[in-house]
């Protein structure tokens, strides 16, 4: 009897929780882009904060994180961290919940289109890979060089360890101009380190050996060897 009471209480609280967060869930519908319907799937969840991810099948976007999620129920706004490029910002979404449907506007590259999303289940927010801690041997400044189609590039990588917190990195590539490459993620697995930049579509991956990192810089079709050494 006591168990039953507890169960009923738990279910009631769960129901109350969901009733409080009607925006939470997996939402699916079509964005009415002229001449092309694009399927948009949005997962919105509320724990300590609102989080979410989005999938646009056919546009090569799967589980992209939502950024700047702002909820003032029944309204929600966010950006989808994907589909950006030179002079093109990530798509922004503004929507309002009414009659169980999420209706709003999808903005990309200055174009806007209406959509209606329906809730098709609980949220399945995709977890994004995060930076790891790094060992002391990786810490500090590294320098290297490479060449793309005859154009020389100089690389400076500064890796910062934050103890038990995730590491951070500054990556600067100097060619004809100075490129401060925004780093999304630093991950170390054994003697292997990976630096990712979504904005530049760039990854550096390398293995530390004899106080140098022997690796490859990957960017689009470019795969070039880059050895990073301590500055003299």
């Amino acid at each position, binding site marked *: 009897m006591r168990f039953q009471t507890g169960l009923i209480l738990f279910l009631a609280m769960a129901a109350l929780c969901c009733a409080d967060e009607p925006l939470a869930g997996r939402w699916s519908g079509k964005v009415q882009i002229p001449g092309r319907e694009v399927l948009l799937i949005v997962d919105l969840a509320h724990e300590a904060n609102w989080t979410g991810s989005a999938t646009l099948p056919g546009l090569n976007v799967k589980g992209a994180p939502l950024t700047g999620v702002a909820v003032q129920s029944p309204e929600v706004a966010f950006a989808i961290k*994907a589909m950006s490029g030179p002079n093109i910002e990530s798509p922004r979404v503004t929507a309002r919940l009414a009659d169980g449907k999420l209706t709003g506007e999808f903005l990309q590259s200055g174009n806007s*289109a209406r959509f209606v999303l329906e809730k098709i289940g609980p949220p399945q927010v995709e977890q994004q890979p995060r930076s790891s801690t790094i060992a002391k041997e990786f810490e500090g400044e590294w320098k290297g060089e490479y060449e793309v189609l*005859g154009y020389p590039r100089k690389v400076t990588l500064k890796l910062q360890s934050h103890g038990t917190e995730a590491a951070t990195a500054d990556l600067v590539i100097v060619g004809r101009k100075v490129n401060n490459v925004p780093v999304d993620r630093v991950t170390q697995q054994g003697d292997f380190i990976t630096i990712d930049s979504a904005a530049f579509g760039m990854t550096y991956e390398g293995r530390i050996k004899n106080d140098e990192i022997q690796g490859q810089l990957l960017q*689009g*079709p470019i795969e070039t060897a880059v050895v990073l050494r301590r500055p003299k």
Partner: protein
Amino acid sequence: MFRGDPAHTGVYAGPAPRQFHRVKWRFATGNRIVSSPVISGKALYFGGDDGNVYAVDSETGRQIWKTKTRGPVPATPAVVNGTLYVGSYDGNFYALNADTGALKWKFATGGERRFEAKGLHGMQPKNQTIADSFDIFLSSPVVVDGAVYFGSGDGNVYALDANTGELRWKFKTGDVVHASPAFADGVVFVGSWDSYFYAIDAKNGKEKWRFHGGEDALIHNQVGFQSSPAVVDGVVYTGCRDAQLYALEAESGKEKWKIDNQLSWVITSPAVVGGKVYFATSDSALYHVADAVTGKWLVKEDGRAYMFSSPSVVNDTVFIGVLNGTLAARDAASGKLLWEFQTDASKENKGWVLTVERRFNVPMLFFDNWHEGPIVAQDRQLSVGSIFSSPLVANGAVYFGSTDGFVYAID
């Protein structure tokens, strides 16, 4: 003929509209138009990707005749002494009666093909040979002194008797020749996708010199002469996919200067007049004017989208097509935009191919590296009525084709 004369100066007689007034007419074909119109008398001639060669009344836009080939015709005809000369993707080169469209003769080349390479432009699979969908033009002929000269996907530059179609000579290069040869002082000038630019003796087909452009063993993106040269005052001006605009001595092939466009193809054929070189780039979408003697930049303007169309200069105005479906008229001196014409397809902007600023909306175009990715992307790009065609200016009107399937007359 293509670019107005055998030397390909890209200069046309005025007047030309400094302001946009109206679409005088537009002529519908069955497929996209990449070819540039040429005029002879009152008739306008051009090729269509529907396989037809067309003659249209330049005043009314009414069809005079059409003649079917067995492949797309993204080449610009030459009309000389009542005969029209043009090549087709069916691998044949045609001579037609300019008044009636009747076949006078045709010549079978070794067959057409597009430039291709393994892992082209970084597409996957890396070890698979992939044809280049941006190799979009066929070589346009130049006709001089009873001979017709053109390049072919079979790698040859051909010289045929203009009256009979008999082969005078052929010159073998190492890859596709889709650039259009220019002619000056008894020499045929043309570049090949083998990364070399050639000067060939027009009499006997012997090589006078060759110039080596850039190479790109990694992804074959920065290689090949797709641009057609202009020859003015003993200097050959040509763009290259290695992102350079070259000025070469016509006599020796020695490099006088080059302009580095930082990995952005120079597909346009430069126009040269009054000591200035007019050209544009693809990815960086820049419209340029440079000093013809020194190569110093005089003007650099944002063109908003890729430009494959070649600039046409008429007095103080320059016209150029843009792949976002607009025709731009610019002031020759300042490079400033005077007016733009936008195709209906560009205004519709299906699938958000363009941003609101009419730049290419890359995330909505190129989103995979599969070998068919760029072909699909190009199909989307061309849906906005892209203007590959180089504008012809005659009788106060501007004529050009669009991938929306229309040829336009604007005055």
